[in-house]
């Protein structure tokens, strides 16, 4: 069981959350090229180790958050609001 520290609610079980995908992907600008859209929609760094990702506290406060998690151990290294900074 992953224990996720929601920035608003504190530590909660993973079953209250849904995974929202890679948080390093930034929505392309209006004048982005097809290649930039391709990279945004399809390509993933898919790292072995620290991975920044969105989660949604869907069965809790319903806020989106961001966390950094090790994909080899599942250890959660940092959490922040979705628009926050994981490096602080």
């Amino acid at each position, binding site marked *: 069981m992953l224990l996720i520290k929601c920035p608003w609610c504190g530590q909660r079980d993973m079953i209250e959350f849904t995974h929202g995908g890679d948080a390093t992907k930034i929505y392309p600008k209006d004048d982005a090229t097809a290649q930039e859209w391709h990279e945004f*929609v*399809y*390509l993933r760094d*898919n790292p*072995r180790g620290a*991975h920044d*990702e969105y989660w949604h506290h869907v069965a809790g406060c319903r806020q989106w958050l961001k966390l950094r998690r090790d*994909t*080899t151990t599942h250890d959660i290294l940092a959490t922040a609001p979705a628009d926050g900074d994981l490096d602080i």
Partner: protein
Amino acid sequence: MVIIGGGGHGLATAYYLAKLHGIANVAVLEKGWLGGGNTGRNTTIVRSNYMLPANAHLYEHSMKLWEGLSQDLNFNVMFSQRGVLNLYHSKAQADAFARRGNAMRLNGIDAVMLSRNEVRKMVPELDFSDRARFPINGGLLQLRGGTARHDAVAWGYARAADQRGVDIIQNCEVTGFVIEKGRVAGVETTRGKIAAGKVAMAVAGHSGQLARKAGLTLPIESHVLQAMVSEPLKPLLDTVVTFGAGHFYVSQSDKGGLVFGGDIDGYNSYAQRGNLPMLEHVVSAGVSMMPCLSRLRMLRSWGGIVDMSMDGSPIIGKTPIDGLYINGGWCYGGFKATPGSGWVYAHTIANDAPHRLNQAFTLERFANGRLIDERGAGANPALH
């Protein structure tokens, strides 16, 4: 040439290269032991009940190879065509299944729609009571589907490839590629450098990690998919049943254990282990479908790392680097494809061009919009 990955797909590729294309100067490199990855971690189900033409033809070709595989390899892979039954619970689902069944039949694949009573006759243990949470209205049956002994597939291909002159090297991990002027020239490994004119990746689950060493970023995320097996029982279930209401599939192994599987956990992982909430979800779907499972004890559970491609279909073909080939992105479904995957991959490598059966499964399809999205719900790394 070098094949990276000594699982079913890599070994099948080596076998067909030697047998059908006269290329036996092949080394299969495996970082662990033969079949120690997803080949030995799946739920052993074999089927070709796909709707889209590209998938239908690839998996049906694979099915036809399965039907002669034990004889071809002179190794009993215990292929058992016990049928794969998909249950439906609503009119919308019945329509969707009829559409898929019709598409299958148009593509030359067997498919039968069963009524509630026909399903009941076939699998009486399912919940047909008035209290069923998801009443079973009927099912789509592929009688030629079934199961196979997964480890035996790796062993059989390995022995048959070895007998034709292929070198199989275990405990040899590829750490990098030698690339000269845009063309592959060999691999660096934990046991030294190996020069090769062609290098073929077959490491689904870790395709992203390996391709990165060649400078490629893939439309793939690695996720954990769990499975489990119960204590052994006397014969209870003589087919494969999938539960369309949740996501649950079950068959009974020859040792008597019920083998269960469900969805991926849903977060990126290389850990080869998952978490209990998904196991609980799978088991509750199982009990909802077959109440007689409620007091069954689980023997063990395990996780495998799967390449979740962004359209739910595999990638088999060339890469932007000359002489480097990719076979990955199998999502949940690589095991059943093993013979067909190796067959088309061997053709692709030998001719430096895809076979018509895999020409749609390119890496470029994501950039040029020719996705093979069976679910019609991409882009999303949770499809299959």
